[in-house]
Each structure stands twice: as structure tokens, then as C-alpha cells.
């Protein structure tokens, strides 16, 4: 089966998963106590039964379950996720506004974690009992055990009171003026702390994994063959071993995207990063159901897209992988 065929199949399958997410969304809303009518009534400061009934008819809540589900799905198909009464904006507009900030954070943290993690893992595997190896072990324990918001807060305390090098809140400085390049630099400047905080958890995971994977690969028969051919140590290590050791790291990194997005929710809150996470928290506290569900849908969409990209990468790394 060719590369593109397989990818096309993955895309089709991803769409199915998203439909399933929508169905779950809808079921959750339906079985949760209270409905939109209650919410709107709450916003209006209370309403009588007649008004409530009117609202229910207007929003189709009197229809049978499957009709409501069908209406919901067909609206989502044209990217209409409903209207947020809290923000007074269509949900899709709201989300698309915030999505780039989250994507920037998630993607940059993930890339940072994978690259630095793999590098540390490889260096550690060269000397399994050396100082780098010990550092990697320590880092991975720290990264797993430290709550991400705690790391973030410690960094804020550090960079506000001791080294005021990086801004600790927001994504842009409104006082900065200049062209695209200047503003991009400003965003990067703001990005550093949230990115490092978010990457720290996953950096720990990947460096540990890369170390283990490298150690296993270094014991493989084909590495012995490469040595028996008289290849220099660096060729053995960085060509023959690393290429094989990357597989497990990329696989796990792919599985972690949903966790990275989860982490981003917390990190965005800590650093007031104006992304989906901040929006999610606001809408949850305001019980703004359409927005919450829209965010859940969009973040699943992001995970699905990243999973397909991971799959494609894996296929490029390892020619043995044939079918999903």
C-alpha cells in the first residue's frame, strides 16, 4: 500500500473519530443536569415556565434526541458550533481567534521537548553510568513529579523577582511598535517561559525514553554488524542506532499530543497566554456550554491532525511500517 493511500485512510479514519467526539459531546450535554434554557434563563436573572418553554422550542430542545443530534451534526459540518451568550460571539469565530496562540505553544513545546530530549537521551546512552545519564535520570524524575503549574509559578517568581529577563504574562506587549519582524520577536520573547514550562514535562519523558531506546538499539545485532564493518563510532551511533531509536520516541510523542494540549490549558492559565486553554477555563466557569463543547471538538481535531502527521513521520523513518 502506498504512502499516500495509507495517509488518506488515516484521514478518513480521523474524520470518523471526530464524528464520535461530536456524538459524545452531544450525549454529555443531553444527560448533564440543566440545559441551554436554564443557562439563558440564569443569564436573564430568572424566567417563568412559559418563557422557558419558548426558549426550548426556539432551540429545538423539544425535538426527539436523534433529530437534535442530526441538526447539531449538520451545523458542525459547516463549522457552525453555535453562539456563545457569554462572549456574545459565534463559537467558531471565538475559537479560531484563540487557536493560533495555542498551536504555537503546543507545537513549539513539543518540538523543543523532542529535540532536546532525544539529544540528551543519546548522550546519556553513550555512557550509561556517566554524568549526563545521571542528569537525564534526575531530570526525568523531576519532570514527571513536578506539577506543571508549580514549575510555572516557580519560574514566574524567579523571573519576576530575581532575573527580569522574560515577560511572565500575555503574548504581546502592546507598547511594542514596529514591523512584522519586531512583533514576531516580541511574541517569541513572551513564548519562552510558557514553552519551557510546558516542554519540561515532556522533555523528561522523551529523554528517558530516548535513552532506553538507544540502549536497546545499541545491543541489537545490526549495530554489531555496523561495528564489524569497521564504521567509526559516530556513524554507528548517529546513523545506524539513532535512526532506529527514533521510532519509539516519535510514536510516544505522537500519543502525547492530547497530553500536551492538556498541559497547555494549565500553562496558558499560569502565564495568561491568550489561547484555547484560557478560553476553556473562562467558558467553564461561566457554564458557557457551546464554547466548551466547541473547544473540546477543536482540540480533538488538532490531536487527530497531529496524529496523522506523526504517522507520516514514522513511515518516513522506518520502511517496515506498512499498514496502520
Amino acid at each position, binding site marked *: *500500500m502506498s504512502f499516500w493511500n495509507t495517509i488518506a*485512510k488515516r484521514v478518513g*479514519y480521523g474524520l470518523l473519530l471526530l464524528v464520535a467526539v461530536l456524538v459524545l459531546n452531544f450525549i454529555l450535554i443531553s444527560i448533564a443536569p440543566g440545559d441551554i434554557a436554564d443557562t439563558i434563563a440564569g443569564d436573564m436573572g430568572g424566567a417563568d415556565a412559559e418563557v422557558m418553554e419558548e426558549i426550548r422550542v426556539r432551540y429545538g430542545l423539544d425535538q426527539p434526541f436523534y433529530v437534535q443530534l442530526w441538526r447539531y451534526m449538520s451545523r458542525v459540518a459547516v463549522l457552525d458550533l453555535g453562539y456563545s451568550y457569554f462572549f456574545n460571539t459565534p463559537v467558531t469565530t471565538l475559537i479560531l481567534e484563540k487557536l493560533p496562540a495555542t498551536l504555537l505553544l503546543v507545537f513549539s513545546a513539543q518540538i523543543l521537548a523532542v529535540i532536546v530530549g532525544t539529544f540528551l537521551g543519546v548522550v546519556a546512552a553513550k555512557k550509561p553510568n556517566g554524568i549526563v545519564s545521571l542528569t537525564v535520570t534526575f531530570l526525568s524524575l523531576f519532570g514527571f513529579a513536578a506539577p506543571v503549574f508549580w514549575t510555572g509559578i516557580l519560574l514566574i517568581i524567579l523571573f519576576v523577582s530575581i532575573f527580569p529577563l522574560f515577560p511572565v504574562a500575555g503574548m504581546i506587549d502592546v507598547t511594542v511598535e514596529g514591523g512584522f519582524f519586531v512583533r514576531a520577536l516580541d511574541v517569541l520573547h513572551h513564548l519562552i517561559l510558557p514553552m519551557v514550562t510546558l516542554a519540561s514535562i515532556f522533555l523528561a519523558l522523551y529523554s528517558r525514553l530516548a535513552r532506553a531506546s538507544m540502549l536497546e538499539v545499541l545491543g541489537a545485532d545490526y549495530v554489531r554488524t555496523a561495528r564489524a564493518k569497521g564504521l567509526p563510532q559516530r556513524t554507528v551511533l548517529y546513523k545506524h542506532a539513532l535512526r532506529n531509536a527514533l521510532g519509539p520516541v516519535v510514536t510516544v510523542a505522537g500519543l502525547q499530543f492530547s497530553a500536551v494540549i492538556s498541559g497547555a490549558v494549565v500553562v496558558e492559565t499560569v502565564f495568561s497566554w491568550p489561547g484555547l486553554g484560557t478560553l476553556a477555563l473562562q467558558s467553564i466557569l461561566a457554564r458557557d456550554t457551546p464554547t466548551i463543547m466547541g473547544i473540546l471538538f477543536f482540540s480533538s481535531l488538532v490531536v487527530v491532525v497531529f496524529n496523522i502527521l506523526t504517522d507520516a513521520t514514522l513511515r518516513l523513518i522506518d520502511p517496515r511500517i506498512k*499498514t*496502520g
Partner: protein
Amino acid sequence: MTHSVQAAPENPSLVVRDLKVHFGGGKAVFSRDRPVVHAVDGVSFSVPGGRTFGIVGESGSGKTTTALAIMRLVPITAGSVTLNGEEISAYEGRELRQSRRNYQIVFQDPYSSLDPRKRAAQIVREPLDLMNIGNPRERDERVSELFTQVGLRPEQKALFPHQFSGGQRQRLGLARALSTRPGLIVCDEPVSALDVAIQAQILNLMARLQADLGLTYLFISHDLGVVQHICDEVAVMYLGQIVEQADRVALFSEPKHPYTKALLAAVPSVHATERDRRNRVRLAGDPPSPINLPKGCRFASRCPMAEERCRQSSPPLEDRGGGHKVACFLA
């Protein structure tokens, strides 16, 4: 000490008729339809009680799948297996589980064939417990008796498998197989994973047990020397089918099928230091896959003698006198 080959009893103990095991096929929901693998494709033979029937072949020949199908460990696609008049291939559920006391198996790998979390005595006793044979005290006595029979010491009963050597583990495997007093033991490459010095110990033990208990063996192996040593009758399999079958003397001294000849010629021998290796039948290439089978003789693509008719139709397995059966137009 020598064992003379026993006279064959009147009734065959194990009868296999037109056995077929096909894997795959069917539709998977999200992945491609899997192709059908014709692992075993129409195998028939019978084994007289108290005798040893050998099946030899290379990887992909279907010899192990045949063994597992007879043991009812893989689903049978078609055909029948009859043991002492009972058609065990027709049993399901409770009946199948009860019939299992009459046929047991010894596996190839002495390391993966014993549950690492159970003690030796528990492993040997497990079939008795599961089939509810005898009362607990009788089971304990049976375990002690089996340990003696296979040459293990009674104080080893409480040990775990990893505390035994490869040969001892294979003895444990034999004890487990013998626990329910089965008539038939299927031996799937029982000595292939052992060092040569240990191989001899196990082969001798198996021969002794057969003489003492009147066991019937179905012996699967890729090692022609071992098969020649222990079997009374031998079938050669190639891509899911028997291509030649004869008693041990006839098969090894007068092989008729070109594949059998090539297989015998391929075995390096200590007796052949001066033999001119160049004059022997050599096969080129690898066996074709059991997925896309040719329509004629399955061996035709590698056969040095193949003619047009070999590629057109498949030769039947025919008796060429004295029970020597061959599936070849040219033999």
C-alpha cells in the same frame, strides 16, 4: 540396549483425512482484506498404535500447523482427525475438553513452554486438576510417579522452571504430556532447541517411554537425522501437502520425490567427507509463499526436473508399492 520395532497392531490409532487449515481471509473492518494462507492443504495419513510417525519439512511446509490442528489448537478448515475411533475433530466445548486427556503435546521451546509462575509439580499436575482426574492425593502420587519416569528427582517438584536446565525442562514437558495417560503424544520439534549432547538424552528417554507405555508418537522435525533415528514411518511435507511418505528404510534409501532427494542431499554429513558435493541435487531459490500458490505441482518452480504438465496440474499422492507413496508425475 536396542529397541526392535514393534509389530504394528491391526487398527490404526490416529487417522487424519484430508486435513486443511487455512488462515486469514475474511474482512477486517478498517484494514485491507487479509489474504488466505493455505498452511495445511489436504493432508491424510494414519499412524498405527505404539508407532512413531514423522513429518519432516522446512519452514512454511505446514508441519507444525498439522500438529497443532490435530491437537485442536488451531481451527480446522476441513477434513477429519480420528483417534482410536473417536472423531476428535468433531468435538467442541465440553466434549473437546474431555477428549484432550487422550492426546497431549510436547513443544519445541523448553523456555516458553512452561509457565514461569508455576512450580514444577503444579505444571505437571495442571491437566489432572483441569480435567478433574482422580482425587487430590492420587494426583500427587501421579506427579511423583511421573517425575521418576522422566528422570527428575522428587525434591525438584517445588522448583520453578527457570531453575531447570533446558534438558530438564523438556523432561518436565514430557511429564506434563504424560500426566493424563494419553495414547498419542504429538512432539513438535522436541529436541531442536537443545544442544546435541542433551538431544541424545531426550531422544533416548522418549524411546524408552514409548517402549514402556506403548505410546503413539507424531513426531514433527526439520532434522532428518533425528527423524531417521526415531520414526517408523515418515512423511515429507512441502507447502502444506505431503509429497512423499514411506517407512523409514524405504524413504531414506530410495527417495523418489525430487524434493525429498534434494532435502536429503542438503544435509551435511560426517560420513561424506569425500563425497563429491557438486554432483548432488541442489535447489535454487526459496519456497514460494503459501499465499499465492501455483496451480500445478507446488514444487515445480524449484524442481530441476519439472515439465510442462507439472505446471499445469497437481500430481496426486499415489502408492507406488509397499506403502511408498509419492506425489510426482516423474517419479
